């Protein structure tokens, strides 16, 4: 029976204050602290803590058979410290059980790998140090923001000590006879394993679980495990389910609740002989030997097109990101801790996601955006950025 690799990401950005143009040059109070902490507090109480309790129960119950991996962005961790220290305790408890592999990522949940490689390395290193200090964890698995990946990342990852990387698996690869349910390796290195997401099954839990129009709604644990069982016949090694941890939340009025589903699914799956494994466990001490995972151009885990369009697809996003990263040299030369921290926070991919126009074009709301429109998000970000530019260049 194939193993199951469960991975959860946690990230919360520092959302911006409404920063009017008259404030440019006047104040550097960019971040909506109260608002951000309130969101973290609410997410912790309503989603993260209850889900952690379930994972804790499962670890106690199934011991060695149940392991998961997490990546928590540095910005999320910082906000937890202030808004929800009990959540940090809860992660420490899971950590003490030895039930978690901590996955490395960029400190700010940024797109730096595309725009500024040295900044990317700085952020990955900062995040590694955070994980080591806070949890005593040494990250050997990496997951980039939005699972953004291309071959050219490999040498950097190997150099930074990673042995595996969580990556998307576009449908186009399946047509070449490859399967997401195998461990792959990079054509650029024999030492880096690529753990490929099973997009379809991940979407069943993430995107579609609470979607009444979806054909498998409501999804039962037995049915899900049956799909896993069926993969055994095709020689599947591991089925990788990658999710945002925010998805593991109850939803009012639903008969089937995802947290309960998770509990049931683990029960049924272990009974059927599926083990829940992390990349480090899967690799053991050995060198990966799988098929090659060859991705010349960047892809992401975005459902459907695997593109980065929701983040960098339009002119507003490109202009905002370009201007932000043009500051790199000046910020580094300055070496001012406060300015570096601000610049780093502005790199969160969320700020650019708020600028996507895809929702407005369909007459929908960008549910994760605190802004009324993409234009408003862009204007506000640019006002803040203009002020930061002034401060950087003034010194």
């Amino acid at each position: 029976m194939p193993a199951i690799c469960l991975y959860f990401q946690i990230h919360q950005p520092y959302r911006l204050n409404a920063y009017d143009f008259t404030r440019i040059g006047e104040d550097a109070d960019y971040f909506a602290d109260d608002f951000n902490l309130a969101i973290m507090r609410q997410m912790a109480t309503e989603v993260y803590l209850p889900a952690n309790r379930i994972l804790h129960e499962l670890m106690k119950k199934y011991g060695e058979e149940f392991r998961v991996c997490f990546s928590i962005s540095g910005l999320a961790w910082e906000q937890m410290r202030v808004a929800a220290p009990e959540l940090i305790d809860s992660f420490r408890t899971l950590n003490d059980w030895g039930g978690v592999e901590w996955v490395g990522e960029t400190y700010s949940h940024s797109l730096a790998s595309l725009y500024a490689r040295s900044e990317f390395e700085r952020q990955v290193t900062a995040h590694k140090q955070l994980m080591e200090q806070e949890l005593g964890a040494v990250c050997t698995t990496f997951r980039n923001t939005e699972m953004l990946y291309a071959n050219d990342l490999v040498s950097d990852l190997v150099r930074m000590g990673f042995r595996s990387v969580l990556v998307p698996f576009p449908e186009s690869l399946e047509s070449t006879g490859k399967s997401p349910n195998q461990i792959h390796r990079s054509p650029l290195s024999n030492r880096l394993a690529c753990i490929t997401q099973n997009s379809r099954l991940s979407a069943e839990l993430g995107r579609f679980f609470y979607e009444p129009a979806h054909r498998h709604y409501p999804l039962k644990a037995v049915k899900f495990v049956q799909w896993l069982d069926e993969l055994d016949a095709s020689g599947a090694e591991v089925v990788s389910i990658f999710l945002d941890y925010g998805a593991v939340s109850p939803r009012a009025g639903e008969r089937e609740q995802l947290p309960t589903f998770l509990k049931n699914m683990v029960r049924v799956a272990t009974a059927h002989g599926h083990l829940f494994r992390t990349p480090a466990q899967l690799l053991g001490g050995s060198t990966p030997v799988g098929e090659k995972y060859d991705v010349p151009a960047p892809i992401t885990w975005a459902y459907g097109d695997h593109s980065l369009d929701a983040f960098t697809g339009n002119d507003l996003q490109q202009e905002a990101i370009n201007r932000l990263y043009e500051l790199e040299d000046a910020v580094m030369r300055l070496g001012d801790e406060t300015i570096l921290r601000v610049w780093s926070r502005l790199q969160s991919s969320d700020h650019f996601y708020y600028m996507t126009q895809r929702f407005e074009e369909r007459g929908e709301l960008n549910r994760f955006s605190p802004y009324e429109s993409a234009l408003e998000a862009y204007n506000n970000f640019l006002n803040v950025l203009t002020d930061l530019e002034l401060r950087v260049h003034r010194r």
Partner: protein
Amino acid sequence: MKQEAAIINARTREPLSGRRILMIGWEFPPLQAGGLGVACEGLVRALRLFVDITFVVPVFDDRMAIEGVRVVGMAQEAGARDITSPEWERLEGDQPQLDYYMLDARLSDALRAGFLQQERIQRRKMQEMLVDGQVYGPQLMRKVSTYAEAVAEVFGKGDFDLIHAHDWLTYPAAVRLKKKTGKPLLLHVHALETDRAGPGVRNAIYQVERFGLHMCDRVIAVSEYTRRLIVEHYQVPSDKIEAVHNGIDPQKVFRAEHHVPEKIVAFVGRLTHQKGPFFLLETAMKVIARYPEVRFVVAGTGDKMKEMINWTAYKGLSRHFLFTGHVTRQKVSQLLSVADVYFMPSVSEPFGLSAVEAAQFGIPCVISQQSGVSELLVHALKADYWDTNALAEHILRLLTDPEEHRQRIELQKLDLQHISWDLAAAGVMNQYRKFLQKN
């Protein structure tokens, strides 16, 4: 001095005190969207010393109090009346009296049918229409015709000597009232639909304007520029029109230090076709290419804002712009206090108050030839709105030549001496006299 002479003239020639002017307006501070309300208030404040003014608005607000002027809101006045009065019932059965917006034989049957439809609905909805509190907003045409009914109903007895109406929204009311009372009608043109929508426009608003301009006794235009457009696009004989420039209230001006290292070129206005947004961008691009230490601060919103912002992002020029979105008066002042150049590339600007405000703040102006204010700001730098090379040259000159910059400011100060509401009131009084002295 020209201004003083005009004021003395207005005060000493046969006074018209005691003569009653019924002014029909639409915007009035604080319920306003653009310059119309500001202009009406300035004019009324200056005129109230010479004549009795009743100012009619769609919706009254307590803050509209001006000493010596009666402000009447139709929503409040007409709302108290029986809106299904016998007269109205009778009208319903008759061939509807559409003449007050009707306009013109060339108006299509479809449009006419639309008005008939409206006519029926509006009688029932009169009260609701006037009290939804928005002076613009949805169903504007219906509000306009409802307003006309209400004004004719409330002031039909004709206890006034002259009707003075401001812009197309009031023309149906004014013409209807003239027909009912036989009082002389003076229309005051602050803006034309051809300014907003281009000279080719022949929509319902244009038809309302055209009808009013032909039905009235005399026309005041806010500039010679607008006067020419009325002759050209509305075929009104030019001797029926008099140009009377708007004035401006003195305001507290100040200079402040700004924080951006670049020089600031300011634009204040709605971001609509009329204000020349893409001529602004084209000019800016030419300026930036030769003088990169510049930032264009674009204050205001409008249907072209999204496109403008996308364009600057697409060109990678966002660092040379700042789009402020909606701005309060106070923020406009803040902006003017730090600006180095004021830029108004309007495609068609009947007056252009914002440029005068900028001049008050001591900012040299670069404005389009196609504006009324260019007749007053003689010393502003001017070019045709499409001539973005010339506009860019003007801006560059002001940015790079401190002596030129200083001189323009001084010269514009001279221009400002000829702009006042007293002067405007004197011009209006001269028009009143044409009708009121005959009796």
